[in-house]
């Protein structure tokens, strides 16, 4: 079927939208309209296959679906809808998914307007040369007023109001018109099927039986089982065992040719060998150059992950190993903490990525984890002239050997209704943000530009932003380099002993306040127990804050006879269960939340 549709009847497109603007629901309606999924199979958000995705209503990994569409011109078209992740952490993945397309549907919620991250993605799409089809969604709402959305699309991207389509993911209204527009406006793929193979990996998936699958868009040439292929960035060679398309389930086809989208299996053991953005070519007749734009995934945020029970170290190690097979952006290496024992320092694309990985590890591998507060990577220039990269506050060198410390700075774009500008500027400046300017968009919407230390975003900036704007402001950021900064390490001591996993790096001006806050957070997070618990914050040995929890005096079941024994044991087991996620620091039992509580430093 796929083979019989000529290249000029193929359309490759994606949907660019903000998190809850209805992308997945609209995709469901498109699947129904093209009968890719019959109604019996239909479940909400077909493309989001992970439970976590369906729960959070976001797309974590891209996926794709091939649609056969009988157009109004009586001809049969092959549409490839590539679903992209919709979060700031996954910017690079988005750019590769966009690159696999010739067109993009820009989906904007009629009542929300355009969000910061959508703007960023539209610009990415424009840079990739994509044809953009502007769509206003959720027009099923009783008295919708498209003016905000239309105005912003006009002002931000120059779309004429007449070119904008209207859809409802809920009712399916406008979906046929949208598909017609895709055929009419999105150009068919170019590319010579006889040329040496060049296929872009825009996603990958790990299957425990068959290894890694590369999700590919073929730009030139043809690929079929038996072909020897070469990954151009890492130089690994494989023999293709299977190619196929997404219906949306995986379905084998004899070959994939220029312009087509599908998957490829080649006995690849890990997704690290089929990195998103890499170009697959023929090992026998390699292309002269890879497709542009490959980048090694760059972890931005780090934290320590430890098993709650030290006995589970090996289980965690196995889980991380398995997990990383399916997530090339996730980095980990062993580290040891005096407080937490053996664990791993893990690198993530951002905070959401970090939360998702932690949650999936606990859920899919049944692990109890202790996570330390996230940190960014610092560059420390020593007096000897060495440049150290420090991603763990515990490893921060002592002040006497430091010549200069540099921290990562991001260019942040915040889009917000104008009335929240004041509070947003306030929280941005409190977090060492440097104002770079403000653009007026449409109606009362503005775009604020700031340079901000990434470390401040990691602490609580995003939460604060949402809080002061009642959820309306959106944030997009990209790394803008490293800058010197006056940073200090704050040590946290429990009963006099520094707890490495609780140490933080912070700007000198915040050190005292954060030290005090951490102590008071710990006082709440660490329950009273058999022994007194003293908590202190110190900079270079000087105590700057201190608090204590008095010892518990009474926890006893006084009456215990024959009939009660089992129930009494269960009572103790239940109490014990509540402590399972606690870490032993000396004689003190520190709950897992305590390690994370230092993250939330809002007073």
């Amino acid at each position, binding site marked *: 079927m796929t083979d019989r549709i000529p290249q000029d009847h193929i359309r490759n497109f994606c949907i660019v939208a903000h998190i809850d603007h209805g992308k997945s629901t609209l995709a469901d309606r498109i699947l129904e309209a093209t009968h890719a999924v019959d109604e019996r199979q239909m479940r909400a958000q077909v493309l989001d296959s992970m439970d976590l995705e369906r729960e959070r209503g976001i797309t974590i990994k891209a996926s794709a679906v091939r649609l056969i569409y009988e157009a109004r011109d009586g001809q049969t078209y092959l549409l490839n809808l590539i679903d992209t992740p919709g979060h700031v952490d996954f910017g690079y993945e988005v750019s590769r998914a966009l690159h696999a397309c010739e067109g993009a549907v820009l989906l904007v919620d009629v009542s929300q307007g355009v969000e910061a991250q959508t703007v960023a993605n539209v610009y990415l799409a424009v840079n990739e040369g994509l044809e953009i089809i502007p769509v206003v969604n959720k027009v099923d709402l009783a008295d919708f007023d498209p003016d905000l959305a239309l105005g912003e699309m006009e002002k931000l991207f120059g779309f004429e109001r007449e070119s904008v389509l209207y859809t409802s993911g809920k009712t399916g209204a406008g979906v046929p018109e949208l598909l017609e527009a895709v055929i009419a406006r999105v150009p068919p793929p170019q590319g010579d099927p006889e040329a040496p193979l060049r296929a872009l990996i825009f996603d990958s998936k790990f299957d425990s039986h068959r290894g890694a699958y590369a999700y590919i868009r073929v730009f030139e040439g043809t690929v079929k089982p038996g072909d020897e292929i070469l990954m151009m960035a890492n130089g690994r060679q494989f023999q293709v065992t299977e190619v196929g398309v997404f219906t949306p389930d995986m379905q084998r086809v004899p070959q994939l040719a220029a312009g087509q989208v599908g998957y490829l299996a080649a006995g690849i053991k890990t997704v690290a060998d089929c990195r998103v953005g890499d170009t697959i070519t023929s090992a026998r007749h390699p292309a002269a150059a890879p497709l542009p734009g490959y980048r090694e995934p760059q972890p931005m945020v780090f934290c320590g992950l430890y098993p709650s029970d030290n006995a589970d170290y090996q289980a965690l190690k196995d889980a991380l190993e398995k997990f990383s097979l399916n997530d090339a952006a996730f980095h980990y290496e062993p580290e040891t903490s005096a407080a937490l024992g053996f664990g791993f320092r893990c690198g993530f694309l951002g905070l959401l990525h970090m939360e998702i990985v932690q949650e999936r590890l606990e859920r899919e591998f049944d692990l109890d984890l202790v996570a330390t507060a996230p940190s960014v990577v610092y560059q420390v220039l020593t007096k000897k002239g060495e440049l150290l990269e420090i991603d763990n506050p515990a490893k921060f060198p002592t002040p006497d050997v430091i010549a200069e410390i540099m921290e990562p700075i991001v260019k942040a774009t915040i889009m917000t209704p104008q009335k929240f500008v004041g509070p947003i500027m306030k929280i941005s400046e409190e977090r060492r943000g440097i104002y770079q300017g403000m653009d007026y968009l449409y109606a009362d919407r503005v775009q604020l530009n700031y340079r901000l230390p990434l470390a401040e975003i990691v602490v609580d900036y995003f939460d604060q932003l949402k809080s002061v704007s009642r959820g309306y402001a959106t944030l997009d950021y990209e790394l803008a380099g490293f800058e010197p900064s006056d940073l200090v390490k704050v040590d946290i001591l429990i009963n006099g002993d520094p707890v490495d996993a609780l140490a933080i790096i912070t700007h000198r001006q915040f050190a005292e306040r954060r030290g005090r806050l951490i102590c008071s957070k710990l006082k709440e997070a660490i329950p009273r127990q058999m022994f007194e618990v003293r908590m202190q914050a110190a900079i270079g040995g000087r105590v700057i804050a201190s608090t204590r929890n008095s010892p518990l*005096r009474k926890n*006893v079941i*006084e009456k215990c006879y024959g009939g009660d*024994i089992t129930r009494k044991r269960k009572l*103790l087991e239940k109490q*014990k269960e509540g402590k399972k996620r606690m870490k*032993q620091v000396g004689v003190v039992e520190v709950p897992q939340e305590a390690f994370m509580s230092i993250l939330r430093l809002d007073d």
Partner: protein
Amino acid sequence: MRTISLYIHFPFCRSKCAYCDFNSVVADEGLRQRYLRALQDDITRTGNTLTFRIGEDEGLTRPTASDLLVTTIYFGGGTPTVYPAEELCAVLGRVRRSFPVIARPEVTVEANPGTVTAEGLALLRETGFNRLSLGVQSLLDEELRLLGRCHTAAEARRAVAEARAAGFENLSLDLINALPGQTVGAWQATLHDALHLQPEHISCYGLSLEKDTPLARAVEAGELRVPDEDTLVEMYELTHRLLTGSGYEHYEIANYALPGYQCRHNVNYWRNGEYLGLGAGAWSYLAGRRMKHEPDPARWVEKSEQGLPTLTEIEELDERQRAGEAIMLALRTAEGLDLAELQSRYHLDPDRYSIRLKALIESGLALDVAGRLVLHPVHGFLLQSEIAQMFM
């Protein structure tokens, strides 16, 4: 030879106390009589067959008659003495005819001071009951009213005198503290008066407010206030000081005895020994299984009369649970826990708790007495739940 304790439950009371969530009901004479007959049948049958009926499988516990010996017998409740002494004596007679019993068993009966008479006590004593546990609770009438007890302090004193006259030489008093509104001084007064009665044994419990009891509701509604942690600790400390100062051994968290008068029946529980329970809601622990009888007296009677299995819960303990219970129980007593057994018997890794064990001993919460971990009789016992969890 397997020695076991035998417990027989009497789930009836003359009135329900304001704090009680125990298995006891105020029932009519008809049900009480049916219960007594069913209980006697069950004693005979269990004694003769030494099996428990638990459904299709008849032979769940089958100790053979030749290797089983009852060492203690305990009539508990509820209030066993809602039954006339003659009837309790008949039950005891049934036990003696049905089970092999050692020559001098400890035979306890619980009694409410409001339900005993001089004649009844004399008959009980003559028939073979040799230990009387009186639910005195408090010796202040105001507190007894608060608790909803059906007797006064004066009646409690009279019951003690009558028990002595009847020949009971092993007398235990149950006392309750931590009452809403109770001061340390009030508790001291009750302790003082109790000591004056010179019992061989005293059990002291902190009142635990059980959901849906009148007392708990009054506290929830803010009408009454329970003493704070420091006051409770002070009361516990006072109890220990006064009673040990008067020659009592603090041999378990809530129990004190003059030398030689520890309750053998309860000591068997805390040593994790085996026991057989009969009657509604009674638990048994035999061959590593904990089993519970149907708790509702009316339902228990019905099932029993129809020859249906009366056990409702059977729990097979795994090694970890057995270890947990044994450790939890050992730490309740002044004998303490044999530390070597943690590894040799329960297969626990000593490294996992060595730091805290050391801290426990250094802080004085526990002592290492020739390889046994013994909790401090005040501050250690008061944290027994925390400490036992270390090993669970």
